[in-house]
């Protein structure tokens, strides 16, 4: 290969690839954002750099999203404060999974083999609807309050240290859900962005994002198919230099007992459902 040909081919390749990447980013941020949410330290958490990457000077915020699982197990209940996300929400039923492209026919007659075949299907990319401080969060709060009130109403022997610790932990869990847990819930999924936007029109409360769902046959033996919201494709949001001063000091660990640094941050999602940080300020 002649050197001039190599140079030309290389330069064209570099220029074209960068043009596509930068053009895509510009296209995403052009025009009116498809959603613009005012989030707080409850929904955005500083990303903790992994051990070998401590020299990374970049600052990234992690979007803390959740799903509403009505039949919450005891383990899930006590892990609330650890910011767990994902899970199998009630709305991700068999009909919804079929609409997302998953084959649920094998579950017509439920068996262990049918469950394995169903769950063998790998995650698919879908569009997820994020709801901020809406009905899903209110329901989650209500469920926690019911559970805590029910537990606290049970008789206990004064001086029983284990019982007292447990009651203290229950109150902390309710406090956590009331004032510290994320209010951002995945409330729906689909493959048609226009149809989802028509259903969820409030752009300050609902954002459409890319994510993945995977099959999960809930309740072995019941034959009910369901899915799990596996992840949100872009859950890490880069902090540009102009906002670094505001967000550099916020805590990375969300389950630390110390009070968190309060802040408000506006996040927008563009034409390609990719987010960016618009502004941020300490409260």
């Amino acid at each position, binding site marked *: *290969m002649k*050197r001039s040909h*190599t*140079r030309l*081919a*290389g*330069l064209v*390749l*570099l220029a*074209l*690839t*960068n043009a596509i*990447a*930068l053009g*895509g*980013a510009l296209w*995403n941020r052009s025009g009116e954002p498809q959603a613009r949410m005012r989030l707080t330290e409850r929904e955005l958490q500083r990303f903790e750099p992994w051990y070998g*990457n401590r*020299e*990374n*000077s*970049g*600052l*990234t915020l992690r979007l803390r999203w959740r799903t509403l699982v009505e039949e919450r197990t005891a383990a899930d209940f006590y892990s609330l404060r650890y910011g767990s996300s994902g899970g199998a929400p009630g709305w991700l039923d068999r009909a919804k999974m079929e609409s997302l*492209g998953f084959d649920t026919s094998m579950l017509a007659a439920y068996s262990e083999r049918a469950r*394995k*075949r169903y769950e*063998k*299907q*790998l*995650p*698919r*990319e879908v569009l997820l609807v994020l709801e901020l401080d809406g009905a899903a969060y209110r329901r989650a709060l209500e469920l926690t309050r019911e559970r805590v009130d029910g537990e606290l109403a049970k008789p206990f022997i004064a001086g029983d240290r284990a019982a007292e610790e447990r009651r203290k932990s229950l109150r902390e869990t309710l406090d956590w859900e009331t004032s510290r847990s994320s209010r951002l819930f995945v409330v729906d999924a689909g493959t048609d962005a226009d149809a989802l936007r028509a259903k969820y029109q409030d752009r300050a409360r609902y954002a459409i994002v*890319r994510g*993945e769902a995977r099959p999960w046959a809930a309740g072995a033996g019941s034959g009910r198919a369901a899915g799990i919201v596996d992840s949100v*494709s*872009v859950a*890490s*949001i*880069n902090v*540009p*230099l*102009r906002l*670094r001063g505001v967000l550099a000091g916020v805590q990375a660990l969300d389950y630390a007992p110390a009070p968190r640094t309060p802040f408000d941050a506006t996040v927008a999602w563009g034409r*390609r*459902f*990719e*987010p*960016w940080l618009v502004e941020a300020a300490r409260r």
Partner: protein
Amino acid sequence: MSASSRSEAQQRADEIRAFRAELERLEREGVLVLAPEQRRAVEAHHGELLAGYARAFDIDRDAEAKQLSLGMRVASFLGALALAASVFFLFYQFWGLLPTAAQVGILLAAAFGTFLATLLVQARDPTGYFTKLAAMVAFACFVLNIAMLGQIFDITPSDKALLPWAAFALLLAYACDLRLLLAAGILCLIAFISARTGTWSGMYWLYFGERPENFFPAAVAMFLVPQLVDHRRYPGFGAIYRVFALLSLFLPVLVLSNWGEISYIDADDKIIEGAYQVLGFAVSGGAVWLGAKRHWPEAVNTGLVFFVVFLYTKFYDWWWEIMPKWLFFLVIALTAVLLLLVFKRVRTVRVGAAG
């Protein structure tokens, strides 16, 4: 014959050296004696060729120089990897302290600058060692360029990024005769083809590794490249394609022969594992046969290694728990002896047939 690359020139120089040694031996044994004018003509021709190669490619002219070259190759390989890692961590250390425009500017300047610098170094470096260093840094800068743009602008991860990375690595590999960059390009291509294969079933591309069968089309494609594209000007390139093709075939088969549940095939796990075990023996044996037939030592060696791995994996499954350890290892040793006898026999038959 004019050589177009250092490896081609080195191969010809080695052949000339071997020819001279053999000619000297034949003359000593009285089998062949060249007339003085013939000898002079051959020596002049070879001398001219070697001098030309030395000027253009700085080839190794004797065994000592060749040994030193091996050390230099190892040093340049390690240096290339370390320099690429250094560039990566250097950017990571400071990028957060720069405004977005400066971040993008530095990434673009690094990608374009190191590419042009590689071409400049190549024009002034007949040995190729410094070109390898520069090319590896250029590739690392391009990977960093696209990966960091994704991070700066919160772009959704895409398998499509693998394609320009593969194209860039292959461009540098072919332009600068660099096997390290060829391997990098092939790896990117294998990942891209496997991810695309996975998405045909509807899955999200990042999960392509969870179904090892996704690698099979990539294995076939890599195997066919040196068959369909003439690589005589690039010694060793065809072998690298074949090695990666065989690895893309054997490793998934090895995984599936032990974990049938992650196969696409809708059947009992034990049946899937059994089928892939049989396939493993068949394709590794086939690779040895084909490699011996087509004079591809890399195919023979890779096939042999995996044939033995498949065999020992089965031995472990069958006998590790039930046999005393001394007997288990004795069986393995006897199997190795048996394999030696089989290959000796095959070799004798082949030599006889050739004779």
